[in-house]
């Protein structure tokens, strides 16, 4: 009876993913405890975030992919409308307009688009399935560009980039011709001066500082200088949990959120870093397996895009903290402190599990 209930409860949960996620979350809590200066309050708050994310994941995993397909258009439209609302009446903080006050709480609609955009595009390509033409890719590009431009205007370069990536992965996996991809890359190269001129001063500055962090050691260059010192000083074996001097002596800024990986690298060293990379790689690989086994075009594209977006998160954050990418404000998935990103991750993993565990039904149906 009980075992039946348990097996029913876990019916739509992918055990490989769940094991990796739980393991990463444990690591995350340990690092957070150290990074927050051994404050249990931060850790318990993060545990609540994680519990919520896991619950959302379970809920979404139990939803059939067909149902998700059906909400593709409404989710996309609501997301875009909320973005427009933000640009009209959003709250301004730190010079950017990202939050929408809906009375009870503030929401950040751009976060929603990270999933709404790939769902929408996957739905579109699955509808057009076998008769894809260049026009379809153009339409997809426009559907992608609308929310991205709205997010860039806020301005929130980090999120705009992630939404672009999640949409682009769908387009890429749907079979966009190599000619367009290479041509697009060439065009992007040619247009980069134009893009440069569209960037806000602070965004340009961040890229300049990446190239030479010593340019602004008082401001954002300070982050990169201190985080590379933290990682580098960790050595092969690390300084040990709670023993990172950079961390404990307050030299590292934002060390519980975007720069938490520097704490990890300092305390657990190269060995820890490689193991964490492998853990993330397993999650990504599992996502790819789910995508390749998926039975419908929609599921395939969505699973592939989610896996690649997760990969992008990992790469951009670790690259930024170790000083090879600009500081764009992307958290390290499953490790960084924060409720919103945890929730988005829960949704994403839920979608993957739903795709994986409902495919028999699809095959028979």
């Amino acid at each position, binding site marked *: 009876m009980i075992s039946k209930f348990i097996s029913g409860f876990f019916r739509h949960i992918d055990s490989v993913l769940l094991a990796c996620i739980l393991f990463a979350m444990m690591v995350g809590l340990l690092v957070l405890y150290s990074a927050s200066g051994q404050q249990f309050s931060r850790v318990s708050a993060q545990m609540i975030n994680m519990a919520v994310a896991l619950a959302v994941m379970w809920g979404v995993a139990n939803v059939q992919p067909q149902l998700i397909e059906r909400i593709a258009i409404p989710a996309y439209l609501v997301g875009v409308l909320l973005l427009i609302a933000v640009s009209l009446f959003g709250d301004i903080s*730190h*010079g950017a307009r990202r939050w929408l006050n809906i009375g009870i709480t503030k929401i950040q609609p751009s976060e929603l688009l990270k999933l709404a955009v790939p769902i929408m595009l996957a739905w579109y390509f699955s509808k057009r*399935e*076998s008769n894809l033409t260049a026009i379809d890719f153009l339409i997809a590009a426009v559907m992608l560009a609308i929310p991205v431009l709205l997010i860039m205007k806020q301005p929130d370069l980090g999120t705009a980039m992630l939404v672009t990536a999640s949409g682009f*992965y769908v387009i*890429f*996996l749907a*079979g966009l011709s190599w000619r367009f991809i290479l041509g697009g890359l060439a065009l992007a190269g040619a247009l980069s001066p134009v893009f440069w001129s569209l960037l806000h001063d*602070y965004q340009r500055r961040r890229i300049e500082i990446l190239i030479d962090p*010593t*340019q*602004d*050691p*008082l*401001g*954002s260059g*300070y982050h990169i*200088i201190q985080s*590379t*010192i*933290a*990682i*580098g*000083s*960790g*050595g*092969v074996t690390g300084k040990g949990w709670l023993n990172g*001097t*950079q961390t404990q*002596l307050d*030299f590292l800024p934002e060390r519980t959120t975007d720069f938490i990986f520097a704490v990890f*690298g300092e305390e657990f*060293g*190269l060995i820890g*870093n*490689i193991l964490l*990379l492998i853990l*993330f*790689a397993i999650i*990504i*690989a599992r996502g*790819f397996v789910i*995508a*390749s086994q998926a039975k419908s*075009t929609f599921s*395939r*594209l969505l699973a*592939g895009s989610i896996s*690649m977006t997760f*990969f992008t998160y990992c*790469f951009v954050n*670790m*690259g930024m903290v*170790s*000083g*090879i990418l600009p500081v764009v404000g992307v958290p390290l998935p499953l490790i960084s402190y924060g409720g919103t990103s945890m929730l988005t991750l829960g949704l994403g993993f839920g979608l993957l599990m739903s795709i994986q565990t409902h495919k028999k039904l699809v095959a028979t149906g």
Partner: protein
Amino acid sequence: MAYSTELRNHQNEQHNFKVRLTIAAIIAFVVFCALGLRFYYLQVKRHDYYHTLAESNRISIVPISPNRGLILDRNGAVLAHNFFVYTLEVTPSKISHLDTTIADLAQLVEISGIDLKRFKKLKSQSHSFESIPIRTHLNEIEAAKFAVNRYRFPGVELKSRLYRHYPQGQLGTHAVGYISRINERDLAQLKEDNVISNYKGTDHIGKGGVEQAFERELHGITGFQQVEIDADGKAVRVLSSAAPTSGNNIVLSIDAKLQAIAEKAFGDRRGSLVAIQPNTGEVLGFVSMPSFDPNLFVDGIDYDNWNALNNSIDKPLINRALKGIYPPGSTFKPFVALAGLEAGKREPPFSIQDAGYFTLPNSRHRYRDWKPSGHGSVDMRKAITISCDTFFYGLAMELGIDRLTDFVRHFGFGQKTGLDIHGEVSGLLPTPDWKKRRFKQPWYMGETVIVGIGQGYTLVTPLQLAYATATLANQGTAIRPHIVNAVVNSKTHVVTPIPLTILDKLDLKMQNLEIVKAGMVDVTLPGGTAASVGANAGYSIAAKTGTAQVIGIKQNERYNEKSINERHRDHALFIAYAPAEAPTIALAVIVENGGHGGSAAGPIARKVMDYFLLGKMPAEEVAPNNVKTPPNTLLPNGATPPTLNAEEEHYD
């Protein structure tokens, strides 16, 4: 067949998808390997380097503050610059007995009571680990004396700092502004604006005038030295450094000589003058009297000086040109005249018979002219010249308040001009809507009547009045006034001029403009209200005098200048542009409690125009002494409340 094609397509598509997925996986794998290599590089290859850095995170970053940009007048005269001075600075947290240390210091170098007071004030506003100046401007001997005895004073340092200096003292302070120490509010604002990192090492920030409005340009980019420090916090060696970039220089449109002539012409009277070049919007002179010496604020102003400035009944800290609001009085009439002519009213040969008063239909209330016996036959041109109230009462009533205000609003009344320094107020152009909102009362016809002569609720700033006059001189084309002419990049020396912005363009009939101009030119000719101002000028001046009353005069009461308290005397107003046929300067002058516009404000304007148009410096003369500050007055000046019950006026 169809089915098999679809199936093949489907298989095809699945195959394509797997190829793409494999490519994605390879890319992800390669990128992760790259990250792994980066970690290897940081944590193995460069481990020793980073280990040392972390061990003694002991890299200190020392900001080097940039030189603040200069402020120059239109001809290159320096209004604000920097120079090095020695300062003696104390870090309270490093000293156990502050009072004895200060007493010992005072044996070595002079520390005055003012120095001490300022130090205490700064100390209360700063963190204890901040270094606070106790004495500034040490001379070489004092600096040397301290240097020899330095060992006796741990926690006290001799520093060489750049100081802001305003070589012209109080000249044009309200335009140039001043700098003072950064306070909590400034800090919060800098954080909000995301520029806080550029202010590490900067103690001062612009307050008021160009110093404030162009802070970003003037400040420059902070340089730094990345130094390795030992356990005591002393620099061992410099690891890297970047030189600061000086702030940009600002060239004003203000002419320092014109400014000086105008300020001197005011003597010890209070008031304001704004002179504008009509076709460019360049502000040539920006006077608010009395002024104050901005140098007082650079060190952190001491208590006594601050109290003296802040509590003075003359309110020198108030920027009258921007914030002083006055009834325009008769200087409003040319604009009302133009409103009438453009509406097709009062076109020549129309004239009235002025008996010395105006009455509304079905009312026995008399709106009196300033000349009780009346002016006889008066047409539009003469009405302006002799400032006939009766003529404008009737015109205003016939136009109606909405048509009147809608027209003059094009000249900037009731709204900010958009001058490039902060703090401007918008004055007031009353409308029935406004009155309903403000007082929840209906608008009365009588209120329209007195708006015709610039009375009632109408309020203007000197800047607005000058801007309106410049717009009139420019035949209806309103150009945004600006005090800054150009920004000169400190590195490249590239001069970026401030672009000319047209704010409004009225399509006016030439013959109407000519009538108003003719009336205004006659003002400065014999028979006009400011005949003495135009005497022997050598160029033609289009002008209008005005008087704004400070206290209400009751019906059947007479205004007697001699018997009235000086601070209750009327404000004198004067607007002019010259040469009348091709104006290059337009100005507005207000002398508070000055009496009559023609005699009190006009001569100031004349001196300014003589200098600007003829290059003539005013002859040395004894300052007018008809105005002495009486000690006991209560009425705040600067902003004079409009007299709400004034229905009957005494005017020029």
